[in-house]
């Protein structure tokens, strides 16, 4: 199997996305306006919200891959599920880091059980269990099925977790991104651009990770 970046399309994708990400960071720092009450802290939202979007998208992919794995009995969907779970957890970690960084100056404390962050934390913990299952679960063929099932029930549980946490602490304000659609265009356009670049980055990362996991499993099968 050829190295991933020997492929011209993959190499061009990497260069293009790296350039777009550099432009995105420059654009967020230099061109987006300062929000009066939040100052520099608000700029973290151009990273925080796209990370959350990619994290949830990735966990959605884990669920879809789990369903397809059960239906088609094809190991490829197990690879997709594992790759998406790994990438989703990386982005969820970013959300759990950037959220408290934003909350500290704005709310005065890093953690106040805000519904979205709490849902992210619970999902993150479920996926820690998912990786423990993958690592210490034993019989490799059974673990594939168990992991697919955990991926499905984890995503099914998301709306229930979100609603329960939301009603649990109704006094806690929601993130400002709820009103992101009503923001002026000088905030909205860079935000949507950042969201698109993060999504493209996710697609490339997913393809790369599937490639690496596939090589690893072939090597293990030949040992």
């Amino acid at each position, binding site marked *: 199997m050829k190295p991933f970046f020997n492929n011209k399309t993959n190499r061009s994708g990497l260069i293009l996305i790296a350039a777009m990400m550099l432009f995105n960071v420059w654009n967020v720092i230099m061109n987006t306006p300062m929000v009066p009450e939040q100052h520099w802290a608000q700029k973290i939202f151009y990273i925080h919200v796209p990370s959350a979007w990619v994290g949830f998208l990735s966990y959605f992919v884990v669920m879809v891959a789990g369903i397809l794995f059960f239906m088609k009995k094809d190991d490829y969907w197990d690879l997709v599920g594992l790759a998406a779970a790994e990438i989703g957890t990386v982005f969820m970690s970013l959300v759990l880091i950037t959220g408290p960084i934003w909350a500290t100056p704005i709310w005065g404390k890093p953690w106040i059980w805000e519904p979205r962050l709490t849902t992210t934390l619970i999902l993150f913990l479920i996926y820690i269990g998912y990786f423990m299952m993958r690592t210490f679960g034993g019989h490799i063929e059974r673990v594939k099925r*168990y992991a697919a099932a955990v991926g499905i029930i984890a995503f099914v549980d998301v709306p229930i*977790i979100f609603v329960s946490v939301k009603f649990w602490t109704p006094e806690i304000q929601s993130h400002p991104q709820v009103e992101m659609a009503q923001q002026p265009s000088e905030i909205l356009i860079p935000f949507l651009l950042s969201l698109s670049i993060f999504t493209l980055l996710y697609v490339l990362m997913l393809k790369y990770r599937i490639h690496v996991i596939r090589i690893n499993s072939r090597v293990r099968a030949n040992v």
Partner: protein
Amino acid sequence: MFFTLLKKELFVEFRSREVTLSMLVFGLSIILTFALSSNVSPTIIANYAPGMFWLMVLFVAVIGVHRTFSYEKEFDAFSMLISAPIDRGFIFLTKWISGFIFLTIMEGLILIPFFKFLMIDFPSQPWIAIGTTLLINCAIMAIASLVSGIAMRARLSEVLLPILLFPLVSPVLIAATKISGSIMVGDPYSFWKIWLLIILTVIVIFGLVGYTLFDFITEE
């Protein structure tokens, strides 16, 4: 076939009393620990009592489901069970219902020590408290039976079960605490209606997902 499987679950348990007895003794130990570690006024304890109660039920449920599934591993009974020409979703349903029965029996036996040791008053609307408790038990056991079915034959199953179960069951724990807290202080139904809806949603969704997935999880 469903009733045969359910009869098997209940028969095995009523002969050995292994699951209910271990749940009961563990539950009593937790109450004792709570009572000894919270030497504060009864008013403060009354505020925390619903949370303590459902936390105890959750710990006890872990012991229960782990035991009901792990005795299937002895003599490889589970392999024989799944090789039988039956709908495997029924295995999940019978584990769920039997787990619900064992958990409810345990709660029935442990309620008086819980209220007496922690020196709190019984709820003023006992039938509502019993009805909601049954529904909450049903929701907890739906998730616990499904997760236990997944973790049972994995290595380190006793570690993986609580690690996977606790975050998944968190909405039920929140709703259960809110419902019981409201009933204890005599709040009207409209105050805790939303939490009851969450419990019912969990029962329906996890019941369906468990029934559907169990067929795939238990494939050989």
